[in-house]
C-alpha cells in the first residue's frame, strides 16, 4: 500500500492505491474542510502535491487554482487519487479551523426554575432479620418513600438495577444512595450505590449542531453550571452541510454518522466533566436539542426519506431512551431526552429556541429567526404559531462571496464607512490582519455601502463615483475594503457587485419568509412585540444594520433580542425544569408549518424583498429617514 506523508507535520498513513488524498487525510486524523462533501465542487480541500504519483483531472478542476498554485502542485484532495508514495502539503486554509462557537446562553423570557426529573435519596436501611424478611428491593423502596420520595408501589425497578441491589446493600452496610428518575412511564429506580453521594447529582444539556456540539453540565441540586464543553461535530469529515450527511447516510454511512455524533458529544462531555472535576457516571439525565436530521441520526433512525417529497419526519414528538443505548458515556440507566421535531426543517433546535425565547408562554406576538445556510422563522404566541424554513444560501455565512469566510481569526467582523471619504474602518476576529469577510462583516458592509450611496437599492455599485476604492473588477464593479498592504493574504480584499447580489438574495429570502408568515397571520410589523435572533449568526451581527438592509422587519431596535445559542439554552431549561417538557410537546403540536414553496405569495414577497431594504419603503420608515439624511451628507462635499 502506498504511504502518504502529510506536510508540514510529516504525519504518515498507508492507504490503498486509488484512494483519494482526502480519504488518506481523514485516516491520518486531519479534519479537512469539505464543504461539498467531497464532490469536487467547493475547492476548499485543496492540497499541494509535493512529490509522488497521483491522478488528478487538472483540466476539469483547474478553475479552482491560479497558474502559480497549479505549478506548486495544487489539487483538490477529494478528486486526487493516490497512485504511489506521495508527499502532500495541507495548507492551513484546507483544515477545519477553530471558530467562534457560540456557547453563551441567555434566556430573557424564561426564569430558570429548578424542577429536575432526577432525585437522590441517601438511605440507612435496617438489615433484614428472621423477624423482618421483607425483600431487599421492597426494603429499599420503602426507605425511599420514608425519606419523602415517591410511594413504594409507584417506582419501577429495571432488572439491571435489581441485579446490583443485594451486593451493594450488604457491602455498604445498608447505607446507600438510591437515584430515582421521572420518565414517561413513571418513576424509575435508575441507580443504587454505596454511601451518601447525594452531593453528586448532575445533568447534561446538549446542542447537537450540524457543525458544532456544545455541552453544559449542571448541578441538579442548585441548577448551577459546573462545566461547559464544545467541539466540532466530527461528522464534518463526511460532508459539511446537512444534505451531504444525509447522502452519506444513504450510501450506507448511517452507522458511522451515528457513531461520530456520539463520539462528538462524548468528547464535549469529557471536556466539560474534566473541567468541573466530576465523574461522568454522576450525570443522570441528558437532554439533546438538535435539528431534525441530527437527532434522527443520533437515534440511528434513517433520515433518507425526510428529504424527499413529501418531506415527512419519522416522529413529531419527543423521544426518550436510555443514554447508554445510543452510546453516550454517562451514568448507567441515565435517561436521554430528545427535543421533538415538527418537520424536516423545523427541528428540536428550533423548538428549543422557542422555549428559550419564552414566546410560547406569553400573549405578546413574537417573531423568532434562526439564520444559517438555512433559516427558520417562527411567528406566534402562547395560542398559535406559524413556522417556515428555507434556504438563505451560503452568502450570509461568507460562502459564495469572493472574499467571504467563516468567522475564523482574521475575518473582518465589523465595518464602518466614513460617509464622506468612504474610508472603511474595520475590526477583525482576534485582531489579526484581515483575510476576508465573515457574515456580520458582510452585513455591516452592505448597510454602510447603501448609507454611503456607493450602491443603489438593487446593490449595483455606482461606478460614476470617482474614488480609488470603486473600480471595475475582472467581470463586475467592486469596492476595495482593505488594500493589499494591510491584509494578511497579500491581495486587496474587495466586495464585488456579484457578492452584493448574492447577499441581497439571501437576505431577501429571510425577509420574504417573515413577511409571508405575517401575511398568513394578518399581522403587521407594529403588532410584533419582539424579534428574537437565535444562533451564532444572530449573536454577532449588528441589529441596526440587519434592519437597514431589510434582513428583518423594522421594529424598534431595542426590541430585537439575541438569545445566543437558543438550542443549548432550551436544552438547559428542559434539563432543569421537567415541567417544561410538557410545554415543549405543546409547542411541537401547536406549530403550523407553512411550506413556502407551496405559498403563491412567497415569490412576490421575495422579489419585493430583493431591494434595500424592501420595495415597499413604507415597511421601513426609520431606515428611509436615515437614508435620506445620509444622502444629504453625501451630496454636501
Amino acid at each position, binding site marked *: 500500500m502506498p504511504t502518504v506523508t502529510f506536510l508540514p507535520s510529516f504525519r504518515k498513513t498507508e492507504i490503498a492505491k486509488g484512494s483519494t488524498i482526502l480519504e488518506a487525510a481523514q485516516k491520518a486524523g486531519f479534519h479537512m474542510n469539505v464543504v461539498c462533501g467531497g464532490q469536487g465542487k467547493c475547492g476548499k480541500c485543496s492540497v499541494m502535491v509535493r512529490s509522488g504519483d497521483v491522478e488528478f483531472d487538472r483540466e476539469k478542476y483547474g478553475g479552482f487554482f491560479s497558474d502559480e498554485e497549479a505549478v506548486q502542485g495544487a489539487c483538490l484532495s477529494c478528486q486526487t487519487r493516490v497512485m504511489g508514495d506521495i508527499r502532500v502539503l495541507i495548507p492551513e486554509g484546507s483544515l477545519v479551523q477553530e471558530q467562534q462557537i457560540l456557547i453563551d446562553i441567555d434566556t430573557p423570557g424564561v426564569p430558570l426554575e429548578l424542577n429536575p426529573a432526577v432525585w437522590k435519596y441517601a438511605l440507612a436501611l435496617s438489615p433484614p432479620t428472621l423477624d423482618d424478611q421483607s425483600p431487599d428491593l421492597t426494603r429499599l423502596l420503602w426507605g425511599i418513600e420514608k425519606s419523602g420520595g415517591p410511594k413504594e408501589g409507584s417506582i419501577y425497578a429495571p432488572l439491571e438495577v435489581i441485579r446490583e441491589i443485594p451486593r451493594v446493600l450488604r457491602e455498604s452496610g445498608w447505607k446507600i444512595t438510591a437515584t430515582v428518575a421521572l420518565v414517561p412511564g413513571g418513576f424509575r429506580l435508575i441507580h443504587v450505590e454505596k454511601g451518601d453521594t447525594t452531593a453528586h447529582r448532575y445533568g447534561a444539556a446538549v446542542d447537537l449542531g450540524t457543525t458544532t456540539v456544545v455541552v453544559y453540565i449542571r448541578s441538579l441540586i442548585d441548577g448551577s453550571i459546573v462545566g461547559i464543553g464544545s467541539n466540532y461535530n466530527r461528522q464534518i469529515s463526511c460532508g459539511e452541510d446537512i444534505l451531504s450527511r444525509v447522502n452519506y447516510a444513504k450510501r450506507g454511512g448511517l452507522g458511522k454518522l451515528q457513531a461520530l455524533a456520539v463520539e462528538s458529544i462524548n468528547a464535549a462531555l469529557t471536556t466539560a466533566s474534566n473541567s468541573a472535576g466530576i465523574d461522568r457516571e454522576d450525570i443522570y439525565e441528558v437532554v439533546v436539542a438538535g435539528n431534525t436530521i441530527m437527532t434522527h441520526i443520533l437515534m440511528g433512525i434513517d433520515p433518507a426519506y425526510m428529504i424527499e417529497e413529501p418531506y415527512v419526519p419519522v416522529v413529531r414528538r419527543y423521544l426518550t431512551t436510555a443514554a447508554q443505548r445510543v452510546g453516550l458515556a454517562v451514568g448507567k440507566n441515565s435517561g436521554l431526552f430528545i427535543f421533538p421535531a415538527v418537520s424536516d426543517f423545523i427541528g428540536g433546535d428550533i423548538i428549543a429556541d422557542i422555549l428559550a425565547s419564552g414566546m410560547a408562554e406569553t400573549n405578546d406576538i413574537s417573531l423568532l429567526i434562526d439564520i444559517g445556510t438555512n433559516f427558520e422563522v417562527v411567528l406566534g404566541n402562547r395560542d398559535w404559531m406559524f413556522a417556515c424554513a428555507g434556504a438563505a444560501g451560503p452568502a450570509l455565512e461568507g460562502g459564495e462571496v469572493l472574499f467571504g469566510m467563516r468567522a475564523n481569526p482574521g475575518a473582518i467582523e465589523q465595518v464602518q464607512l466614513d460617509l464622506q471619504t468612504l474610508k472603511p474602518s474595520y475590526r477583525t476576529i482576534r485582531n489579526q490582519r484581515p483575510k476576508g469577510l465573515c457574515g456580520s462583516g458582510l452585513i455591516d458592509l452592505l448597510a454602510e455601502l447603501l448609507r454611503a450611496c456607493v450602491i*443603489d*437599492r*438593487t446593490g*449595483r455599485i455606482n461606478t460614476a463615483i470617482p474614488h480609488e476604492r470603486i473600480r471595475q473588477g475582472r467581470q463586475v464593479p467592486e469596492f476595495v475594503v482593505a488594500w493589499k498592504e494591510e491584509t494578511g493574504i497579500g491581495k486587496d480584499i474587495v466586495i464585488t457587485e456579484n457578492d452584493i447580489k448574492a447577499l441581497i438574495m439571501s437576505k431577501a429570502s429571510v425577509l420574504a419568509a417573515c413577511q409571508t408568515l405575517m401575511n398568513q397571520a394578518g399581522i403587521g410589523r407594529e403588532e410584533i412585540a419582539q424579534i428574537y435572533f437565535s444562533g451564532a449568526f444572530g449573536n454577532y451581527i449588528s441589529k441596526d444594520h440587519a434592519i437597514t438592509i431589510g434582513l428583518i422587519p423594522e421594529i424598534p431596535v431595542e426590541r430585537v433580542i439575541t438569545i445566543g445559542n437558543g438550542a443549548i439554552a432550551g436544552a438547559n431549561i428542559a434539563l432543569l425544569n421537567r415541567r417544561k417538557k410538557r410545554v415543549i410537546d405543546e409547542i411541537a403540536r401547536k406549530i403550523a408549518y407553512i411550506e413556502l414553496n407551496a405559498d403563491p405569495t412567497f415569490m*412576490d414577497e421575495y422579489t419585493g424583498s*430583493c*431591494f434595500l431594504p424592501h420595495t415597499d419603503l413604507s415597511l421601513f420608515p426609520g431606515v428611509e429617514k436615515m437614508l435620506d439624511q445620509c444622502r444629504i451628507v453625501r451630496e454636501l462635499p
Partner: protein
Amino acid sequence: MGLSTLSEWTGRIGELVIGASHAEGGTRSHVVRIGGERDLPYIGTHPSGHKPLVAYELADDPSLWPAAATRYIGDWVHDTADWAAYAEKEYTPDLIRLHLTSTRHRGFSDTSRIGTTIESVLQATRLPLIVEGSDDPAMDSAVYQKIGEAAEGERILLGTAEAGRYRSVAAAAMAYGHSVIAQSPIDINLAKQLNILLRETGLPSDRIAIDPYTGALGYGFEYSYSVMERIRYSALKGDTDLAMPMISSATDSLTVKEVREAQGSEAEKTAVAWELYSMLPATIAGASIVCVRHPLSIAGLKSAIDSLWNGENVEGV
C-alpha cells in the same frame, strides 16, 4: 337603478407631457398629455384622464426591423426623416417612436450621426417624439448624451431605462429636459423598484412612463396584462411609486411565427390583426401609449380606442 362600476379610488395617475410647442421652446405642432386617470380605463360616461394614444414605431436602420413592417412602407424606409414624414401624413399616428437600431451594430461609434438623424426627424415631423437609444451599457452614456442634446427643448420621451442601466438615460433626461421610459420584465415589484431608483437619481416622477414589458398575443401577453392591471390597481390605491402612465409595445408582434408564415393577402391582415389584438387590450389594462410597427394598425387601433372611450360598440375590430 343601474349597477355602478365606479370605485372610490384614492390614488391618481400622474400626468406626463411629451413634446414642446413653439411657445414652450420646442418645434412641435402640438404636445400630448398622458395619464391623469382616477379610475380604470373606459369606465363612466366621462372617463378620467387622457385618451390612450397610438405611437408609430420606425427605425434608423431598417435592416434590423421586421420585414412585415418595412415591406409595406417600401422605399421610404431608406431615409428615416422621409419615413417619419410619410407616416405622419398618410397614417396620422399620435406620436412617432424612433428606434436607433443603427447603434446595435457591433463596434458602433458614430454618435454624431445619431444627432443628425434626430434633427432631421424633428424637422420632418411635427409630432411629439419618443426615441429609443442603444441596448449596450458600454455605449449608453455617449448615445443618450447625444440624443438628449440633439432633442434639447423638444421634451421627448427617452427609452429605455432598466434596473441594470438607468443612470445614463436618467442623466441625459435631466440634463436636457426629457422624460424616461422605465422598463421592467413583467413584474410589479421590479417596476416599482426601478421607479424608486430613478427617483433617487433626481428624476421627478412626472417624467417617468412605466413600460411593464409586453409580450405579444399568444406569447405571454396575459402575463403583461395581469401585471399592468396590478400596477394600475396599486397606483389607484395610493402607491405613488407606481402612479405613472404606462407605455406598451408588443415588440414581437410582427415576428411571431403566425405573422412570419402568413402567405399572400393573409400576410398583411395577420400582421395588423396581431398588433391590434395585442395593443387594444393593453389600453384596457391601463396603457396610455400603445405602439405599433405596421402602418395599417394605426387607423384600426385609433378608431377602436375612440369607440371604447366614447362608450360605443367597437366596430370593425
